[in-house]
């Protein structure tokens, strides 16, 4: 279970998250929606420990662990994964070497021996199939020369390989064509288990259709202003955010 309590965070001296409360039980998928610039990516980055973002108040407890006290790499080892809104290119570091380093670092953290070369290659092959990623991508630099859609597909491929407990998908759907979106969403669904959970950031209804989230939350100006079932998501798709914003400001 992930429990975010009264989380405040700033970037470059500016407060972006202004007291977030959010609980995501194991086995559930929650969707986070909100206008551009409301702080969705900021929240994601704070959860995974991006050094640019400073937490000024609040706590994040993940399966009993104080997440904020861990380094970014250790959070990953504890099972946190983020599919980046804009995945970075790493020229010269092949996908294979990159994933081997990632997997073995996690195994070392959990005091497990490194994966054998053949087991590792088998794992890559299996997971590539899940998201329909061609083998030749493995020898290329990480995201190097990948198209926008290929990068997103690659994010979910990495998620499949690393088998996280809690995943954040930051607009993974944007940039994917309709077929790719279906494959990626189906891939994501097959990875769901009783002990995994996810926070999915999206602007589009199609993602709601595929993932059937347990809860939908709306973030406005650094605060979760409304939470509900999947129907809240469809309502936003139909009506936009303005009605929520005005409801919030009339409350204040």
């Amino acid at each position, binding site marked *: 279970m992930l429990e975010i309590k009264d989380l405040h965070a700033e970037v470059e001296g500016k407060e972006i998250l202004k007291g977030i409360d959010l609980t995501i039980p194991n086995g559930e998928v929650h969707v986070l929606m909100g206008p551009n610039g409301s702080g969705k990516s900021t929240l994601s980055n704070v959860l995974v420990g991006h050094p640019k973002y400073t937490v000024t108040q609040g706590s994040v407890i993940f399966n009993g662990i104080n997440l904020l006290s861990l*380094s970014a*790499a250790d959070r990953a*080892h504890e099972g946190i994964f983020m599919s980046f809104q804009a995945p970075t290119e790493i*020229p*010269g570091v092949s996908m294979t070497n990159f*994933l081997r380093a990632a997997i073995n*670092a*996690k195994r070392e*953290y959990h005091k497990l021996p490194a994966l054998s070369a053949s087991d590792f290659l088998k794992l890559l092959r299996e997971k590539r199939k899940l998201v329909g990623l061609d083998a030749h991508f493995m020898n290329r630099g990480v995201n190097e020369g990948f198209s926008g859609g290929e990068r997103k597909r690659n994010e979910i491929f990495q998620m499949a390989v*690393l088998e996280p407990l809690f995943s954040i998908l930051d607009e993974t759907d944007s940039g994917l064509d309709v077929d790719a979106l279906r494959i990626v969403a189906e891939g994501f669904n097959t990875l769901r288990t009783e002990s995994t959970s996810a926070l999915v950031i999206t602007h589009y209804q199609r993602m709601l259709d595929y993932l059937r989230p347990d809860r939908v939350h709306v973030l406005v100006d650094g605060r979760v202003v409304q939470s509900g079932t999947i129907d809240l998501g469809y309502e936003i798709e139909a009506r936009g955010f303005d009605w929520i914003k005005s409801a919030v400001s009339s409350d204040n």
Partner: protein
Amino acid sequence: MSALQQYINLYHDASELVCERAVDVLNMARPEAERQFCAFVDSTAKLEDYKYTDYKTLLAPDYGLNLRRLSFSSASKYKKPSCSIAQMDSVVVQMENDVPYISSEDLARLPKGVFVGSFSEAAIQVPQILENYYGKFAEKHSDPLTSLNTLFVQEGLLIFVPSGCKIDRPLQVISTTHSNQPLMCHQRLLVILEDGASLTLLHCDETAATVDTLTTQVGEIVVGRESELQMFLLEETGVQHTRFHQVYLQQDKDSSVEWFDLTLQNGYTRNTLRGCFVGENASLATYGVALASGKQRVDNNLLVRHEVSNCRSTMLYKYVLDDQSVGAFAGKVYVAQGTVKNESEQTNANLCAGNDARAYSQPMLEIYADDVQCSHGSTVGKLDEAALFYMQQRGIPLAEARLMLQHAFVGEVLEHIPIEALRQRLSILTDLRLRGKREKCQGCKAVDACY
């Protein structure tokens, strides 16, 4: 007394001793070298070529010279070195200080007409070659370290590949500095490729000394028409080693040279390459990698002269500088008047991994022709923060992520190495060096054990 004057004095006192134990060709070149060197002693002018290397200060300590040519090595002369790059099956020449040794078995593996051996041996077997080429290229340039080398050098290595001869296995020179007291050593290399010849030469510099040492190395390399040379220079010495390496390279028509210079471990290194095209349609591709940390310094200084038309030269040099290390790159391309269709490309990229590391970069063009295509660029940067974070999010610890990015950065140079086995080996050596697991060359067994 000035730093340089001591060498003139020493030469005056010991010239008989110097000459007595060297072949005539070497001795005949000394008067001119002395004249040139004296000019540097008297001059107070700063040399543009030595902008980033204060050679006078580096030459100031009172090193000993082994003019009596005592053997430092207790090991047998033909001891097979531990260095054997997998699958390369190279012919090995061991250089102990300035003296080359090659086993008779290895000699027998070379094609007929090829000469690989010491200058003393060459003076007996192929005196004409030594006479025709020795000092003919280096001495045209006015360079204090080259003059100093010519003044004192007593032995050297000649590699001669006759017309049409293509040596299919690499030749590996393992040059080791041996000494139990501060030592200055002068080494000499002469490589002649006649027309239509080809050679792959791997030159490793290492040190067995744990005292201050300084070597000057002067190489003269002549590449004939339609000849091919692949040269790999690998330095894995130590922090107490100062190395002045000068190469004078001349290329004739339709020849091609690929030049790789890797400084993985050193004290103070100055690499000078003077390339010159004297025949059309020739190409020279140079690549360099320098990894420095602590107080290590690497200064690569290149000049390629396009004296004729239709030639192509490239430079791709990358440095990873940590701690307080200093890297310098000065690359100059000269294109002579009246030539056409010359091409050149220079790239120097520096990664300052440590906040106190410094990089100096000076790509230069001197062009007297209109019909040319020349480009140059240099960058000094830090590791990509976004990439570092992406890697950490996937669970790769920061230190490991940094190493992987540094390795990828120099990997862009290593990927040009045309020999697969060598590329892999050098990639591993680079990785070990970046991890701080390799203080100096420990032989290839140590590497095999790690992988």
